[in-house]
């Protein structure tokens, strides 16, 4: 589904990703872990197509297409969804109205009929239950006055409604207490399926207790330095990122 080869990217002249490669197949859940500044969020933003992140080398293929040549909205319509670390507020635009525009933009792209008001309402009511999102939040302006937990739940709710092929969760656990974390994780788990791939970007192992990944990758200095199964996350939790960094430092002469 997704193939990243030797990806280099920079933000404001600073190189963040330095030769990242990763392959993701349908049905898989990959966790990207790493210390602060390792390039986790950069990877998420590059995949979503944010302009400030400039790709300097490498290629990304998504379902056989050159992802980097696509506009952000095109990527979204092709089924890429990003749950934002800091979802923005859009004053005066109701959550429902916003989502309806999104759903219909995607349906139109797929050559499907736009949903009418009744069908759409039914869809969002059903999906809102998945993440225990209060009905009243549906009619409030997008993210305006939402608590941190509500914002994150709203992201997963949007994911449920938009039904993406590839979902990228950018630090979805940050700022959540344990109850909120569980609700968000339950929502994500219910959206796991054989046709959908999920990339979970996180600093902490905590989230991975609830969303159990198939693969864990450790990102350091813009490169994936270690990959493994879900046990790797536990090992990281116990030993900390310094363990990997020291390991790398020790290994450096050999690699050279």
């Amino acid at each position: 589904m997704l193939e990243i080869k030797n990806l280099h990217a920079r933000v404001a002249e600073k190189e963040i990703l330095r030769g990242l490669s990763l392959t993701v197949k349908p049905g898989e859940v990959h966790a990207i872990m790493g210390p602060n500044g390792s390039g986790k969020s950069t990877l998420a933003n590059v995949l979503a197509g944010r302009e400030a992140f400039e790709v300097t080398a490498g290629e990304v293929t998504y379902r056989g297409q050159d992802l980097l040549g696509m506009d952000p909205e095109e990527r979204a319509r092709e089924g890429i969804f990003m749950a934002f670390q800091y979802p923005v507020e859009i004053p005066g635009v109701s959550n429902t109205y916003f989502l309806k525009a999104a759903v219909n933009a995607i349906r139109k792209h797929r050559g499907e009929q736009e949903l009418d008001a009744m069908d759409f309402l039914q869809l969002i009511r059903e999906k809102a239950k998945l993440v225990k999102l209060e009905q009243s939040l549906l009619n409030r302006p997008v993210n305006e006055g939402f608590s941190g937990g509500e914002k994150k739940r709203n992201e997963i709710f949007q994911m449920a409604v938009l039904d993406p092929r590839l979902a990228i969760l950018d630090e979805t656990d940050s700022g959540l207490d344990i109850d909120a974390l569980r609700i968000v994780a339950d929502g994500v788990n219910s959206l796991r399926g054989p046709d959908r791939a999920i990339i979970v970007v996180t600093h902490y192992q905590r989230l991975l207790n609830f969303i159990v990944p198939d693969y864990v990758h450790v990102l350091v200095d813009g490169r994936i330095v270690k990959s493994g199964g879900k046990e790797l996350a536990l090992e990281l939790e116990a030993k900390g990122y310094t363990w990997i960094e020291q390991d790398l430092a020790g290994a450096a002469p050999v690699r050279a």
Partner: protein
Amino acid sequence: MSMTVEALEELKEREYQWGFVTDIEADTVPPGLNEDIIRLISAKKNEPEWLLEWRLKAYRHWLTMEEPRWPNVLYPPIDYQKIIYYSAPKPKKVLASLDEVDPEMLTTFAKLGIPLEEQKRLTGVAVDAVFDSVSVATTFKEALAEKGIIFCSFSEAVQNHPELVKQYLGSVVPYSDNYYATLNSAVFTDGSFCYIPKGVRCPMELSTYFRINAENTGQFERTLIVAEEGSYVSYLEGCTAPRRDENQLHAAVVELVALDNAQIKYSTVQNWYPGDKEGRGGIYNFVTKRGKCAGVNSKISWTQVETGSAITWKYPSVLLMGDNSVGEFYSVAVTNNRQQADTGTKMIHFGKNTRSTIVSKGISAGQGQNTYRGLVKVLKSAEGARNFSQCDSLLMGDRCGAHTFPYIEVRNPTARVEHEASTSKIGEDQIFYCNQRGISTEDAVSMIVNGFCKEVFRELPMEFAVEAQKLLGISLEGSVG
């Protein structure tokens, strides 16, 4: 070759969708202004002596006045002697129905999206279409007449209801009020008159569409609405104008009078030609709009969506005389390319427990300059007066400007006045968020802007709100990229 020409023509059309000129014989006086011209206008309109005297008084006063320089707008000096002060479609026989209206004129209305007969049938809106300066079609008159409502052109009102016109003309905006209002008082040619009798709730929204249509004709409209005790009326004013290169002055005056327990809701969608991208052409919209809450518990509410004109200079105001009277001002003003707007309101509290609300949303894009200027004045007599003002500015791009001048004068210690203001920029992060959900940048901008204006749009009558949203989209097309 011809395909190319056609394609170009189409593109040109798209730039300002309503830019076309109708070929209709106009009855025009020579350019320039003097007492003879005023006498000529008055004679052509068969006016009573007192009205001519009033015009002349205004003209003589105007000669002593100077054009105001305080608005935060820039434009070359206007040569008032180059303006043609009167132009009317040549009078034909009296018309009994729409079928007799000049078909070309009807086509014009159709292009504007105002098929009169359709409107009559489908929307229940009575339309007094002011074409240039003389009314050509008035509908629903009978339905209104049944309730005793008078809704007609100003000229007709002068002929048929002179006592009402005489009583109220200049009672809210005196002939000496300001440079442009005074000029209007001297030379106004037509407009609308509306009278709602005691206790009557007007059963439909009253609507007038204005359109300038003769080269170099200054448009001097005069509107007067009187709501008698316990009556209610909602009035819609919408306008588009044909594109042209020469600047056009539009100096209208609107006066509203609300007596005891009466309510007037006045909504405007203004889309005069804004000029091209370099700021050539476009309408100068110098308008005086004022309402008087003369009676107790009366209410006047202004809602405006200003997207057009090269320059807008306009402060729909309310004089809150009656105790417990209410004044409201809801405004969206857009300036794109080289447009300039200096607009806002004045709320003058005379009566006890009078309340006013001001919600102003200014949007600047391109090199547009948007100024909010407002005055809240609480006089000594206004025990318990309250005001809430909110002025928000939205900036698109980095070459535009937003300015706010709120003036507050309070002479009564029991008054409560609140003012909130904010300035924001459409953020790259907001647009990216929308993009990431599959929404195009253009739709995202339109969504964010409409969200920003929501508090104002919800004050507009339904069909007007839809039109306003579309207009906003068109006005801001291509301003984020």
